[in-house]
Structures are given as C-alpha cells and as structure tokens.
C-alpha cells in the first residue's frame, strides 16, 4: 500500500513540475516576462502616439531589437490627459513639449503627427532597471539606455506579419547638465509618475519614406542624367582602352625584355657580351658600355615613355570628367579619386623603374671604369641591381595583369599585397618547427 502511495506521489510531482515548466515557457512564448513580473526594479515610461495599429498590452519593448521591457497599459488620451502629459514632459525635461516637437518637425521638414490624426493614445511601458543608465556612465553589460529629451518610442512591427512592438531610440549619449535628466530608479511607481517621452507611429515612417524617395529622385536626376551617364560610360571605355593598350604594351615590349630565353631580353643582351669577354676581354670593355646603353635606352626608356603617355591620356579623360561630375556627389568624386590613385600607383612604379635604371647605368659605368676584370666576375651588386630592376618590372606586370582581369581595381583600388615568395620553402614547411596557433572557439560554449 505504502509502495503504491509513493509511486503516486512521484508521478504527481513529476506531472506538476512538467506543468510548471510548460507554463513558464508558454508564458515566455506569449511575450510575457516572468522575471520582469517577479522583479520590482523597473521604470515606467509613457509616450503619446497618434496611432498604435495593433499594439497590445504585453507587447515587447526593445532597444536595438533586444527585449528590455513590456507595454503595461494603453489608454485613449482625452484633452486633459494630453495636457497633463505635455506639462509633465516639461517638468521632466526642462523643455516644452511643443518646442521639442517643433524643433523636430523643422529638422525633418514634415509634421511628426498627421494633421488629421493628432496624438491621442497614451502608451505606458516598463523598462527593466538594468537597461536604464543611472549615472550617465556605462558601467556594465545591459546598462546602455540613457533616457532624455532626445529619446523617443517608435512603433514598429516584426517583419510584415509579426506583432507590433515599441522600439526605444535614445539619441546620442550626453554628459554634463544633460545627465541630470537621467532618472534615478525607485520601486513600485504607478502610471501617474510615468516618464513622458516622444512617441512616433508608423505614419512617420511613411513621411520619411516619401522624403527618401524624393531625395533619391533628385539624385537620379542630377547624378544619372544622360550627360553624366555618357561621361561615365566614356570614362569606363577609356579606362578599358587604357588597360588593353597597357596589356598590349606589356605583351609586346616588356615580356620579351624580361624573358631570358629570348635574344632581345635584358639578361641576354647584357650577358652575351660578358660571354664574349671570356674570349676577348679588351674589345669588350668598349662594347659593353654601348650595349648597356643601347638596351636600356632603346627598350626600357621607350617603354617607360609609352606608358607615361598612356597615363597622360587617362589623366586627360579624368580632367574632362572632373569638370562635369566632380561636385555632384561624394560617391562620384570618390570613384574618380580611386581611378587617379590607380594611375598614380602606376606612375610611382614607373618612377621606381626609372630610378633603378639610373642605378644600373651608374653601376655599369663604375664597373667599366674599375677595369675589365670585374666584368668577367659579373659583380654581385650589379647583378643585384639588375635583379631588383627585373622584380620591379615584374610587379608592374602583376599590376597590369590585375587591371586586365579586373578593371574595377582602377576604380576601387587594390589592397592585395604584391606577389612575393613565401617566407619559407613550402616543401620544407615541416621544419619551421612552431606548432600552429589555436583556432577560434564556439562563443556559446561556456
């Protein structure tokens, strides 16, 4: 018998616990806040709104989409209550409700509330204590809401079909005298002591949407006029042409110059005489000076000149575009600036190239003056300069390859680092010795 009773008690307890848990979750799913009810530390606010759509008592109050409280009461504002709200607003913030409203409307250039529907609904809502900043200094997680005259309540809807809720917007953080308006919290406040803040309904959004549309139309008209479109198309066509010409130039002039397999390459033209020197050093000294100068002046300097010509053309195009579209929008100016940056990048690369050429020539001269014995050994520093020149030309080509494959880099810039050797030989990766770092962790794991 006792056994029977015990099992009954255990089953009953289990069912009771299950019911409690179920009720707890059901309450939460229904938008309720059980802990909020249990806690007395909350602050009540009131906002007056022209239209609350389908907002209900119990609806969510959120900051940045996160629940911070709930709507506790909704009532129609009679003339007296509206007047009381406005005077309490003045008392709370030290500024007239009408002045704040007018200031806001003049800034937005549209009425906050539709003329045919003056604000008539008072919405009371509680905000959890931890949400409200007490002393104007952010101390810990959750205490981020600084309520003041720049704060207001906005009626919003979750998705297209979801429930309506109140979104609190706080405006910029303030210090000094403004901080005096931050509330100190007290327990068990009633609706009469609720703090009034500005309220807005979705009608306001409609007004703003119209403004945004009109702004967009204005931008369309100015920015995307037929003339500007023509200019932008011209700009892109010219940029494209520039890329094509640069590529052709690289293919026809740079590639043969850098490929040591080809007889016209810098390496062969400079090295072959060195080979000849092995047989006849005396004759060679004079020839080498001529050879170096011939190679560098006829090939590389011509190349540099041609590329500079192309850049000058591009700059000419840019100037034309500048005069017409530069002032219209920051975006277009930015685009032009990026294009200029791209061509300046090429310019800088060419300056480096020219500087290196001068260095190579100077070193070649020095070598010749020091005597022909050095030529046979091919002085390491001279070779180093040649190698450095070669690397720069390679970088120039890499840049042009990038432009060719994606002309947008001319417009939007390119942050990718230049190609370079890996810091270690990949076939030797196991000998670097360091065990790899730990990866990121799942932030939900405690």
């Amino acid at each position, binding site marked *: 018998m006792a056994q029977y009773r015990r099992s009954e008690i255990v089953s009953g307890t289990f069912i009771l616990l299950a019911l409690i848990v179920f009720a707890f979750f059901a309450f939460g799913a229904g938008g309720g806040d059980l802990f909020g009810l249990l806690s007395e530390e909350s602050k009540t606010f009131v906002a007056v709104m022209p239209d609350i759509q389908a907002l209900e008592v119990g609806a969510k109050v959120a900051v940045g989409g996160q629940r911070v409280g709930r709507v506790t009461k909704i009532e129609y504002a009679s003339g007296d209550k509206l007047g009381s709200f406005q005077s309490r607003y003045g008392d709370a913030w030290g500024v007239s409700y009408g002045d704040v409203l007018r200031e806001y409307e003049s800034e937005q250039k549209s009425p906050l509330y539709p003329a045919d529907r003056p604000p008539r609904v008072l919405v009371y809502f509680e905000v959890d204590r931890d949400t409200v900043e007490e002393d104007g200094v952010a101390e810990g997680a959750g205490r981020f809401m600084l309520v003041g005259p720049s704060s207001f309540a906005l009626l919003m809807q979750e998705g297209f079909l979801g429930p309506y809720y109140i979104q609190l917007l706080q405006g910029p953080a303030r210090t000094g005298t403004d901080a005096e308006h931050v509330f100190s919290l007290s327990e068990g406040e009633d609706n009469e002591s609720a703090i009034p803040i500005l309220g807005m309904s979705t009608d306001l959004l409609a007004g703003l949407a119209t403004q945004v549309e009109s702004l967009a139309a204005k931008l369309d008209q100015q920015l995307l006029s037929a003339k500007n479109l023509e200019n932008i198309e011209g700009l892109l066509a010219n940029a494209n042409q520039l890329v094509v010409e640069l590529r052709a130039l690289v293919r026809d002039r740079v590639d043969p110059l850098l490929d040591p397999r080809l007889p016209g390459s810098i390496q062969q033209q400079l090295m072959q005489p060195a*080979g000849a020197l092995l047989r006849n050093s005396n004759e060679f000294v004079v020839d080498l000076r001529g050879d170096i100068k011939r190679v560098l002046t006829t090939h590389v300097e011509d190349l540099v000149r041609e590329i500079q010509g192309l850049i000058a053309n591009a700059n000419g195009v840019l100037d034309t575009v500048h005069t017409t579209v530069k002032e219209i929008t920051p975006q277009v100016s930015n685009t032009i600036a990026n294009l200029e940056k791209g061509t300046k990048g090429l310019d800088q690369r060419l300056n480096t190239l020219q500087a290196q050429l001068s260095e190579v020539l100077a070193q070649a001269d020095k070598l010749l003056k020091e005597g022909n014995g050095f030529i046979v050994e091919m002085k390491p520093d001279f070779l180093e300069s040649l190698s450095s020149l070669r690397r720069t030309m390679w970088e120039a080509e890499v840049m042009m390859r990038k432009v060719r494959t994606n002309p947008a880099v001319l417009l939007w810039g390119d942050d990718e680092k230049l190609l370079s050797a890996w810091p270690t030989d990949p076939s030797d990766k196991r000998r670097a010795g360091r065990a790899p770092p730990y990866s990121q962790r799942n932030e939900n794991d405690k």
Partner: protein
Amino acid sequence: MTSSSRGVAVLLALVLGPGLTGCGGVTPIKTSFNKAVYLYSAGHYEEAAAEYRLAMKEDEEDLAARYNYGLTLEQLDRPAEARAQYEQILAIEPNHPRASVTLAAMEWESGDAAAAEKRLHVLIEHDSSNLFVHATLAANLVRVGRLDEAAAVIKRGLEEDSTSVDLNALLGDVNLLRGDYGAADEAYERALKRHDEDLHAIVGRGEVAFQTQRWPDARSWMQRALYVHPRIWRAHVTMAKVAEIENRLEDAAWHWWQARDVAHTKGGPFHKETIDYDKQLQRVYGRLLEKGGG
C-alpha cells in the same frame, strides 16, 4: 539635444531596425580570445597581444590563450617573453604538446639541440599518437644528418598511422639521402596517395628521378611542383640542371634566374647545397653564345 541627432536616430532605426530584426544582423565577435585569433590572422599583432592579455586576465589558466600569446610575442620580435609564456604553460601542464614542440624549435634555433630532442622524446613517450611531434623530431634529425635515429622515430610514428603524409615524406628523405632511391620513391608515393599535392613528396620524387638520371621524369615532377607553387627553390634548381643536360639552354637560364630569386627560401634535405648562381648563368650564356655561333 539637437534635432539632427534625432534625424540620425530615425534613419538608423529605418535602416538597422528591420535589418536587425528581420535578418538577425551580423554576429560580432564577443570574446577576447576570438578577437585576438582574428587579429593575429590579420597580422595585427600588437592588438592581438592586447586581447590575449585580456583573455588571460579573465582566466589565468587559459593555456590556449597563453600559447597563442607566445606566438604573437614571437611575431613582435620578443622571443624571450614568448619563451617565458611557453615555460609557464609547461609549469601548469608539463606535457603540453604545442608549447613543447614550439619550445623545442626555439631551442634548436638557439643551438641547444640536446634539450630540444630530450623535450620531444619525453613528449613522444607521454603520447605516442601525436604524429606532429614525431615529424618535427625526425625532420630535425634528418637536417643534421642523423639518418638512423630519424628512421627510428619515423618508424615508431608510422606504427601509429602508416599512411601519415608527413612521416612517409620524411622517410622518403631519409632513404634518398642514404642512396636507396627505390625505397625513397615508394615512401614518397605512399605520401602522395594520401595527399596528391604534397609538395614535399612531389619535390622528393623529382629529386629521386634526377638522382637516377631519369630526366623526363625529373622534369615532369618538378613541373608539377611548380604548378602547385611557382617559387620552389629546389624545383627550379633541378629544372635548370635538367634543362642544361637536355641542352635547353634558354630554359636553364630562366630557371637559374628563378632559383637565384627565391634562394632565400631554400630548405629541405639538400639545403646545404651552395650554388654560385652567377657562375651558373655565365656558363649557360657562354654555351648559348657558342651554340649561336657568337
């Protein structure tokens, strides 16, 4: 407050409100550790170090944060402090694998090979299933020419996992250096069966082919290696040598130039080979002249 700030707030609500509620928004990185890992991977070492310090402040026994902090200090060129971090980890967990391996690497670099080897042997005794430790120890033994000891370490590791890419490739190196080309080729082949783009094994097979004078094979393997990564010193050197043997002098010149360019990256079992690139190039261009009748 000014009305313009209200305007900004409304616009923010318009843009962010529906976005955040509808799409869930972008999830920010919350913890210092994860922020630091991100900053380290992006090369912002100073900032990463600051975040790791925060993570360690939150949990002094967060060994992962401490280890990563050590690596960050090394990137900031503060090896002594890094070493202190690794030693602190080992004081808490004496057989911490990553800290031990990295500390051993530092000891090797500073010339204290005996301490490094001892440390790794202890680690293997403690947990023989960690193949990374076997590979690290074996690689360093191969580098100093202690092939028999390396082979023993590799053998023990392969008993744990006979398909290990690292260990098979290292076994290939050992056999290659011993002159047992057949066994070397087989070991490299086993590594490639598991990972067909393993550069270590591809370059190794190319080297075996070169040593056994199978020039087309050597060329083919090294070309494959250069296809995987175009700047491998050993591959360029072998390609240049093969091209010269096959009388393709233009190609030889090209590869000598490339090898000279990436010489600072050289490594592997043949890293001691010194090459006078200028002499190689002179010879090739001299032959080119003769060939052209100049």
